């Protein structure tokens, strides 16, 4: 009897605590949308609650991958460039996020977008023959976003079927998630679940939403506190003030000059990448010489092209105007590995063809392969690269 009393008392206290956490997390998710938009934590891109609640009228989603986690300590990263500006890109993605994950996310969150535009940064490395790797896709899979995508009435059956089929193919390593994903699709397709299964599904969804909300509020708070501490300890960055206070727009010319000056000031190397990245790469360089000489069909075949078309179909069906940012490869490094120029050109042409087929706008940087300091390392955007891409995104938002 005593243990029963103790259990009931503990349960009451537990429910009180959980309610308190629920209220605090609900308030903590969107305390600082500007910080959230530039935050590059991997958990952020998986959070339906975080992305939708923090989306403001002066934001558009910018989908990309690992480049968002590079250049964070410079004044040229979008999080720094647009701080204090009249526009904030909602950066969505991290390493191994590719077109298919972004299709799911866009379809899930599109109703929260007041500015009906989206940007997709296309890394050439996505377009390897394998496409997105199953384990990589799995690690970037959000069940809530997937569920919300399926619930989106604006999406055609064809697009939902494509996403669903690809997802089920890529989730093979996680049988439980795969089973739930398949059940969700069957449910959307009109399969009526028994009442207890429908109840359990609703309970699971509520649990996932709560988990999402608590996790993102907690991680955001921790990251923000850490950033504030770091910023108060750090001296002012190179490049100085980049936002024209009167216009609210970044001063692109000043940023470009600062980017080139910062690049010139570093130790030079044959690839015009950051010295730190070059020093890390240097011991492996002999093994890289000519390693891609046989890649004549490199970046031209594979499922990623279909996934990209799927992303554009999502845009078309939901009334979102997309812009594809065609990122170049690092010409100096790719020449060193002897990756054929013809293959690179064929890749850019193929992307342009897809863009033209869907009649979408592109920001084409394929002619910047040999622009010095465009890259931080072999593949990720660096100083001047970020400035040019940021400018293109800003112009797209303003038009």
């Amino acid at each position: 009897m005593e243990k029963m009393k103790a259990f009931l008392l503990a349960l009451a206290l537990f429910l009180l605590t959980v309610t308190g956490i629920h209220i605090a997390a609900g308030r903590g998710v969107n305390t600082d949308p500007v910080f959230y938009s530039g935050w590059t934590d991997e958990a952020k891109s998986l959070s339906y609650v975080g992305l939708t609640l923090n989306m403001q009228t002066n934001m558009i989603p910018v989908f990309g991958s690992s480049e968002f986690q590079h250049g964070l300590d410079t004044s040229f990263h979008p999080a720094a460039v647009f701080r204090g500006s009249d526009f904030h890109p909602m950066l969505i993605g991290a390493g191994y996020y590719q077109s298919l994950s972004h299709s799911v996310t866009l379809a899930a969150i599109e109703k929260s977008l007041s500015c009906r535009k989206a940007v997709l940064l296309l890394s050439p490395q996505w377009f390897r023959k394998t496409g997105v790797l199953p384990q990589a896709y799995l690690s970037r899979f959000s069940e809530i976003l997937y569920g919300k995508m399926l619930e989106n009435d604006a999406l055609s059956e064809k697009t939902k079927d494509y996403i669903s089929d690809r997802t089920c193919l890529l989730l093979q390593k996680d049988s439980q998630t795969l089973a739930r994903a398949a059940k969700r699709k069957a449910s959307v397709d009109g399969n009526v679940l028994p009442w207890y299964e429908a109840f359990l599904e609703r309970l699971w969804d509520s649990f996932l939403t709560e988990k999402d909300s608590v996790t993102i509020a907690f991680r955001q708070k921790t990251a923000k506190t850490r950033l504030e501490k770091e910023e108060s300890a750090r001296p002012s960055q190179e490049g100085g003030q980049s936002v024209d206070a009167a216009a609210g727009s970044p001063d692109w010319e000043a940023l470009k000059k600062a980017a080139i000056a910062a690049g010139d000031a570093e130790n030079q190397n044959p690839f015009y990448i950051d010295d730190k990245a070059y020093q890390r790469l240097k011991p492996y360089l002999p093994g890289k010489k000519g390693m891609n000489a046989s890649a004549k069909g490199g970046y031209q075949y594979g499922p990623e092209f279909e996934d990209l078309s799927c992303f554009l179909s999502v845009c078309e069906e939901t009334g979102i105007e997309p812009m594809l940012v065609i990122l170049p490869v690092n010409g100096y490094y790719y020449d060193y590995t002897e990756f054929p120029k013809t293959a690179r050109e064929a890749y850019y042409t193929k992307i342009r063809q897809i863009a033209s087929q869907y009649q979408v706008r592109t920001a084409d940087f394929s002619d910047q392969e040999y622009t010095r300091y465009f890259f931080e390392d072999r593949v990720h955007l660096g100083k001047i690269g970020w400035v040019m891409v940021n400018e293109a995104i800003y112009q797209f938002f303003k038009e």
Partner: protein
Amino acid sequence: MKRFINSLKNKKAARSLLSWTGIFYFLMMVLYLYFILGNLSNAPKFVYTQF
């Protein structure tokens, strides 16, 4: 309720009740934190590698 309050007045019994309450509460919170903050996927861990 009255009986419950009276039982708390009995010091020895109250101490035992509070101990058990603490144990149950702790276990509930551990379970809650495990499910709410943990990675529930049973997929093999994906190792991030550079291109």
